């Protein structure tokens, strides 16, 4: 290992952040390299000088706690005021959304990433509202049943070749439909008695 590389590791050596093997290599190098020894001793000296800068902090606890309790009281008062709860709810919703986005950033599941998740959400909402908007409204009960029973009965009783599938429901003469009991007819056709 060359001199430059060893020099770059000196800082980590001082902080005891190297592997045992690396430490041994550096110690071996330090035995014959004066420049590295000088650099290491300067680092050690400056460390002591910097450590001397630490001094007792002024008592900030009282000031912090006074402000903190005042803030908490104000925010509680806001929440219970006439319109304050709207602001509080909005703030919470925004915080929640930000948290969701932040949490999803690191995820490996592509579906939960912000862009994919929002696109999926928008599409789902679009489909839901589209379905609700286009869903047929006020469909008469008889017409719905006509599709399955009425037309078939009419075709059987009048003209089996005539189809009225393409016609609008309103033109189907509902009153002329044979609504009688077909049991006998079927019995004759299929059982032959």
């Amino acid at each position: 290992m060359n001199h430059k590389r060893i020099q770059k590791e000196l800082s980590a050596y001082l902080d005891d952040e190297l592997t045992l093997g690396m430490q041994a290599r550096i110690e071996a190098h330090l035995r014959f390299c004066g420049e590295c020894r000088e650099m290491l001793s300067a680092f050690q000296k400056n460390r002591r000088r910097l450590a001397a800068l630490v001094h007792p902090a002024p008592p900030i606890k009282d000031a912090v706690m006074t402000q903190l309790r005042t803030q908490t009281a104000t925010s509680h008062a806001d929440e219970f005021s006439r319109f304050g709860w709207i602001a509080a709810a909005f703030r919470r919703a925004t915080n929640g959304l930000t948290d969701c986005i932040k949490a999803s950033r690191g995820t490996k599941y592509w579906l939960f990433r912000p862009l994919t998740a929002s696109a999926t959400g928008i599409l789902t909402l679009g489909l839901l509202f589209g379905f609700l908007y286009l869903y047929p409204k006020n469909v008469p009960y008889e017409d719905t049943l006509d599709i399955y029973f009425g037309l078939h009965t009419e075709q059987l009783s009048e003209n089996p070749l005539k189809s009225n599938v393409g016609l609008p429901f309103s033109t189907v003469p509902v009153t002329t439909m044979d609504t009688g009991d077909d049991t006998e007819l079927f019995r004759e056709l299929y059982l032959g008695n």
Partner: protein
Amino acid sequence: MSVATLTTDMDTYSKAGTISKQDAVKEYDMEQERELVLRCQAGDADAMEILVIRYQHWAYNIAHGILGHHEDAQDVAQDAFLSAWQNIGRFKFRSRFSTWLYRIVKNKSLNLISQYQRRKTEPMVIDDTHPYVPIHTESPEALALRGEYREIVRAALAKLRESHRTILVLRELRELSYQEISEILGCTLGRVKSRLHEARKALKVELEKVDW
């Protein structure tokens, strides 16, 4: 909490010698810290008071190391605690509370520096009535004799780049591990290692300039 209770708890934590006493103390500290944060999240201001007492010294010292100014450091430390309280609900225990708090302190200190730098760009009145700008004419030895070691180091620290100053403060003043520093600064362990080395070299150069 009484000393006896604490000792008993420590013994329970050390699990009959399976982990070292030092690790047990650290684990116990972290467990206590976690409980306090949970209480804060439930809106307990008394728990926050304990956290403030526990970390006010280091919050202030880190801010002071970065800013080099007593009043500003005090304001930043206070602000950091208030921000921590307001956003405690967002703390997800991905790191230690102290690491999270120091990150807030660091960000607030750097914000203040950039604010000052922006203000500096405004036009200012220059008083050129004096023929020269008075500077420190005392030699480093004289300063040292007067017990102003601190001022020399502080001045050298102030001349360093922001990133160098911050990393030196976190490592040399607070003695944080590389892992914790990387979490605070949001960079890799390799980057911490190389930046710290550069910072130490820069400080060495600055101190050598004053022949100290």
